[in-house]
């Protein structure tokens, strides 16, 4: 769950769905392109410590693809698929969102069954497991316990590798102040994750929007030169 201002969203698709429904649009590529800007500005409000930020950025990158198609109609089939994916994914997600709200209504009725109580044996017996001793049980227990810390470690790692949009924006602004001009490739060459590259790109878009920089690209997929204004 992620909090954006006064509303909470279960994930990027929930946010996307919310924006589309707010504008009373159907789920199609045209409406996705239309709400891209709203989506981008919403995710900037996300609490930067949120560990699910990367998931929101992946969807942001798909939306940007979609929007860029309006300007650059030539896309590879792979990119085409990715865009259709998002549309299908959102439709599918909407179904489950609807089902889970129907589940909520069922739960609100406060009617449920309870399983029968755990009963003592109706026949009195003692049936120990064969060949099990204290050492064996200790090994089994230690194995069970060793599984807990693993889970926590994985989560820690997730948090560490996070770079926020705000931080990136600050960093790029610093670069512009210092050297007036930089290349996009040079600022992402040390990126550890795909998410970091996306976030840098988003920060760049934001700077263009705020008219802080101008950009130049000689041909598709070439490096982008960023110049302070």
């Amino acid at each position, binding site marked *: *769950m992620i909090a954006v201002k006064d509303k*909470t969203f*279960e*994930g*990027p*698709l929930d946010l996307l769905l919310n924006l589309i429904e707010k504008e009373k649009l159907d*789920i199609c590529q045209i409406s996705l392109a239309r709400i891209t800007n709203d989506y981008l500005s919403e995710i900037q409000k996300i609490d930067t410590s949120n*560990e*699910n930020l990367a*998931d929101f950025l*992946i*969807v942001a990158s798909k939306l940007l693809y979609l929007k860029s198609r309006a300007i650059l109609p030539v896309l590879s089939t792979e990119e085409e698929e990715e865009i259709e994916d998002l549309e299908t*994914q959102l*439709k*599918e*997600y*909407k*179904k*489950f*969102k*609807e*089902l*889970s709200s*129907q*589940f*909520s209504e*069922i*739960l609100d*009725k*406060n*009617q*449920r*069954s*309870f*399983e*029968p*109580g*755990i*009963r003592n044996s*109706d026949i009195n017996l003692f049936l120990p497991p064969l060949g099990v001793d204290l050492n064996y049980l200790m090994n089994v227990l230690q194995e069970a316990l060793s599984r807990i810390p693993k*889970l926590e470690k*994985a989560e820690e790692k997730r948090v560490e590798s996070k770079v926020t949009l705000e931080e990136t924006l600050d960093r790029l602004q610093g670069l512009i102040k210092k050297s007036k001009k930089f290349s996009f490739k040079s600022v992402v060459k040390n990126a550890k994750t795909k998410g970091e590259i996306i976030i840098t790109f988003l920060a760049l878009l934001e700077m263009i929007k705020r008219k802080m920089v101008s950009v130049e690209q000689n041909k598709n997929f070439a490096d982008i030169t960023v110049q302070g204004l």
Partner: protein
Amino acid sequence: MKQKNLKSQIESLLLVAGKPISLKEITNTIGENVVEIQKELNGLIEEYRDRGFRIIKKDEKYLLASAQENAELVAKFLNEELRYELSASALETLAIVVYKQPITRAEIESIRGTDCSRVLRVLMIRGLIEEVGRKEAPGRPILYGTTVKMLTYLGVEKEEDLPKMEELAV
């Protein structure tokens, strides 16, 4: 007389089992014709509707549980919350498992567009879902499915009583 006897035998087995048992297990233990047993079982399901018992059916197995309308009373007796709170994410994930089972974590995440490890753990501990096998795919990922507890938790007698996915217009 014989019919009554059969019904009584089925009741005894449902009670001592205390967990879902299959028609086959009942039939094998009693040693009677499966059609007869099924008929009696269906009779019991009807009969219990205005009693304190309910028979919950999941994957062709039957569980004797308490009546839904006594939920609040039973919760009070057990000194438990009627229902622990499930977050919206957990409910969303549960709905996906209900209609897409058996399903892997990656498949759930691709529908929700976000990480699900924590909600899956919650649903597992609550006994609403369980591991039901491994997918024959690289890495042999775990497949998740729902449990009879999911049905008792929602208060429905069988999966068919849950909202239908096909009826949703998108």
